[in-house]
């Protein structure tokens, strides 16, 4: 959603859609049909298959949204076994080991120093294997979960409270952080913020281990204000300094949070005009009470689920979008930062289903891969290959590019990532490996007949008519009103194969569809 006035408009290019409404009123059930249910499943989850879309489209918007937002309405995902990941994989050296290492350094005992180094290197190697396992585990969970919004919000918080493995160097801490996000996925933002200042991964990532009374480190306090809760321009440098003092002594030992009383600054601090002997919990409360906080979170949620705020204020959507974000911020405050009410309000609203937003969001790499498996019913194939593809497309889980998370939107797309995006879809549909892997790795066939059966249920006989199949697939994968030129490409392909509809021609059509520029949108 970039500036529209700078680009020269071609004479035959239609103008922008009309100004969207700023209404958060619930959309009438009569206006909530197939295309709206499809939109809801893509945005509040990772897309649905055709029978899920149809089921949601007939239950009314209130029930459909509740099914996604209220976790108790769907089966619980299988719990994570307590030994699924090794909690002690990066166990720090014991006091005795530290003493022996120092001694070896003092006496320049090269052999012993080398032994310690080797042990550390082996530990790091196992940990890197575990973080790769963690990546595959989460990816699989997103693919399999009966609660897509829970995982989608977990992904949202991972990008919001970004921590990366390169710095954290502890896969188990990142697993713990991931569970923190999941437990509070649609819970309460205040609880999350309070949790994050006690989260070992974040405390390590933003150097709060080093934040001591005698030598404050401002990193965590600064990022909480700038990136996690308030946004630039809504705090002063003095607030950061004082906030850092409130967070002194917030540290971790092994996998647990510890409050180091002797390193905590117990003096009086002045934060946003208030004074007191604040600690981390007070700091969080004061942050939450800032007006900027609710608007900041509302905007982040809005951009994740609906659309970027246009950079050009003259864009007809600018004012309605800003107004909607303000309304969402009020809902957050009224509900003391509970997330379910604001998400429900947004997903039910007329604004959310405005034509302008349908099929106009660039899928994140995770959205692309998870969404393809969930909606097209492709085999999961090889999680390692899917995971590698996420990295090549710029979204390595547990490794966001910086504390600011992933920029999203158009930054996902360039000539290299576009080919990876198209080729990973070919892989999912056909098992044809994208690059550098054993070409016979995966020959499981994509079961396209289910899509045809779905079509036959709605329109008996339509599953045998190539043109009807093409239109059906296009609307299912690309959204309402697919471009006639794209449909023509599909028709020509079917004609070239003898105009007979078989599961293979359906897979062929899907290979073409997933290579269409518009397939990158949801």
């Amino acid at each position: 959603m970039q500036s529209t006035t700078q680009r020269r408009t071609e004479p035959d290019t239609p103008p922008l859609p009309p100004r969207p409404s700023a209404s958060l009123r619930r959309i009438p059930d009569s206006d909530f049909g197939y295309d709206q249910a499809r939109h809801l499943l893509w945005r509040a989850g990772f897309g649905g298959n055709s029978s899920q879309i149809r089921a949601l489209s007939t239950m009314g918007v209130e029930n459909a949204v509740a099914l996604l937002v209220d976790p108790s309405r769907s089966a619980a995902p299988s719990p994570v076994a307590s030994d699924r990941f090794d909690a002690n994989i990066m166990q720090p050296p014991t006091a005795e080991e530290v003493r022996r290492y120092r001694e070896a350094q003092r006496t320049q005992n090269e052999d012993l120093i080398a032994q310690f180094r080797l042990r550390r290197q082996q530990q790091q190697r196992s940990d890197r294997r575990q973080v790769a396992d963690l990546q595959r585990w989460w990816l699989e969970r997103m693919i399999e979960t009966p609660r897509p919004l829970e995982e989608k919000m977990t992904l949202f918080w991972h990008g919001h409270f970004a921590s990366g493995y390169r710095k954290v160097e502890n896969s188990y801490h990142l697993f713990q952080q991931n569970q923190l996000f999941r437990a509070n996925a649609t819970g309460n933002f205040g609880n999350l913020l309070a949790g994050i200042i006690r989260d070992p991964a974040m405390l390590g990532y933003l150097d709060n281990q080093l934040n001591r009374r005698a030598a404050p480190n401002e990193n965590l306090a600064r990022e909480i204000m700038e990136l996690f809760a308030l946004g630039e321009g809504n705090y002063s440098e003095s607030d950061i300094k004082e906030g850092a003092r409130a967070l002194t002594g917030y540290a971790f030992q092994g996998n647990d949070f510890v409050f180091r009383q002797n390193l905590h600054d117990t003096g009086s601090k002045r934060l946003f005009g208030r004074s007191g002997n604040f600690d981390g919990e007070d700091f969080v409360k004061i942050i939450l009470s800032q007006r900027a906080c609710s608007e900041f979170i509302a905007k982040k949620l809005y951009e994740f689920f609906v659309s970027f705020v246009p950079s050009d204020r003259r864009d007809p959507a600018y004012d309605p979008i800003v107004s909607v974000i303000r309304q969402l911020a009020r809902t957050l405050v009224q509900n003391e930062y509970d997330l379910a009410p604001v998400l429900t309000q947004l997903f039910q609203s007329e604004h959310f289903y405005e034509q302008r937003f349908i099929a106009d969001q660039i899928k994140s790499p995770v959205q692309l891969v998870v969404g393809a498996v969930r909606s097209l019913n492709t085999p999961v194939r090889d999680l390692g290959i899917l995971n590698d593809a996420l990295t090549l497309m710029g979204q390595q889980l547990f490794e966001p590019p910086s504390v600011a998370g992933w920029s999203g939107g158009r930054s996902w797309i360039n000539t290299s990532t576009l080919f990876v995006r198209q080729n990973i879809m070919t892989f999912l549909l056909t098992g044809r490996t994208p690059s550098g892997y054993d070409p016979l790795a995966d020959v499981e066939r994509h079961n396209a007949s289910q899509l045809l059966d779905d079509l036959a249920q709605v329109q008996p006989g339509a599953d045998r008519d190539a043109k009807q199949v093409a239109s059906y697939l296009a609307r299912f994968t690309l959204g309402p009103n697919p471009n006639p030129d794209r449909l023509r490409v599909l028709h020509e392909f079917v004609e070239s194969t003898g105009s007979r509809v078989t599961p293979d021609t359906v897979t062929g059509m899907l290979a073409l569809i997933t290579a269409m520029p518009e397939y990158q949108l949801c």
Partner: protein
Amino acid sequence: MSDLHNSKAWTRRQFLHTGLMMTSATMTIPLFLQRSASAMSMQAAGRRSVPGVPDENVLVVIQLAGGNDGLNTVVPFGDANYYRARPGIAIPEQQVLRLGSDHEVGLHPAMTGLNELYDAGLLSVVQGVGYPNPNRSHFASMDIWQTANTGGVGDGWLGRFFDNQCAGSPEADARMQSGQCGEIGIALGREAPLAMQGRQIKPIAFESPDLFRWVGADLHESLEDGYHDLTGMRAHKEGKPPATNHHAGSNAEFLTRTALDAQVASEKIRSAVARGTGANYPNTGLGRQLAMISAMIHAGLETRVYYATMGGFDTHAGQGGPQGQHANLIRQFSDAVKAFYDDLGATGHDQRVLTMSFSEFGRRVSQNGSNGTDHGTAAPMFLAGPMVRPGLLGNHPSLTDLDNGDLKFNLDFRSVYAGLLQDWLKADDREILKGSFRPARVVSSR
């Protein structure tokens, strides 16, 4: 030893070629005239200009991953401490390839290729390069080299160069508009390195050009026609605008445009590599990468930076001396670079191609208990091409004044980057490196 930061100390060689008038004139003439002045001087230096081929300088970066053992690459054979510290792996003095009679350092005997480049004045050996508070983790140190930031955070240094070239000024916008930014950086490998990741501009990356395309075309012949249609390639070849009804400025329009760009770049790159240059390269990973790079340069791509990678340098055990594991690695590197410049010389592109190699760290001075070496610190960098300031640059790090058994660096790698940015890529080094590093004068100026 020559002073690395002083450009006056080394002009003699070029001075003889181009004369005093030209070298001093470039210091004072206005910016808009410099290009033609330098073009004239290039002709004076015998530089051929190839019609239809862009004139801008190209940087090729070779990453030696794993931590190359600098001390067995550029060997301080005159120092008894070297032999004491490495009884099992040291290179005997008589086998070292001497770098001139007045230096007591020389190349590993497997590096005959680079030695020939050195003798021909096409190689500079920059000694003792590192950074403060060295990090001995492969990942962390590689990030530091790639971001040019000692915290290892931020965008890649070459990515920032791309951003700088493609956004933020009228010239940059013009470059972006004319499509010169689409292929500004090409990395050979599945994943583009952090070094090439800009905020706005991302590099093209592929292991083989055959994978820089839609593989779905292989499934059925009629799919390829459909694909050409939907990327707009068919219309493009017929000189028509792509037939879509997307709103101007919409994401769908943006994606449609990028899909066409990708297909155009893909065809250009695949045909360039398929054509090749006909030159012989060693059949090694790096040899194949440099052959592809040479082919793309020859085909006139607008690419400013190519990136090749060779791994395996993490020689903790049994690394060998004159022969063995490390010798094989360093031979592959040396032979590939030699073949590259033979090829570039034959096609006439050598004058505008400068190659830089680096590794994330060197290794410890003393060998370890398994006839290998552990992660260390400072190491040499190599710069190759007719436009480098040839010879042995800087000082070899001391083998006695150590930091906990490790070499102390005497040149910050960011000084080398600054010199390349300023003198070779003609870019604002301070802006790109986010700091002021005294440029190392590693490029010959004409």
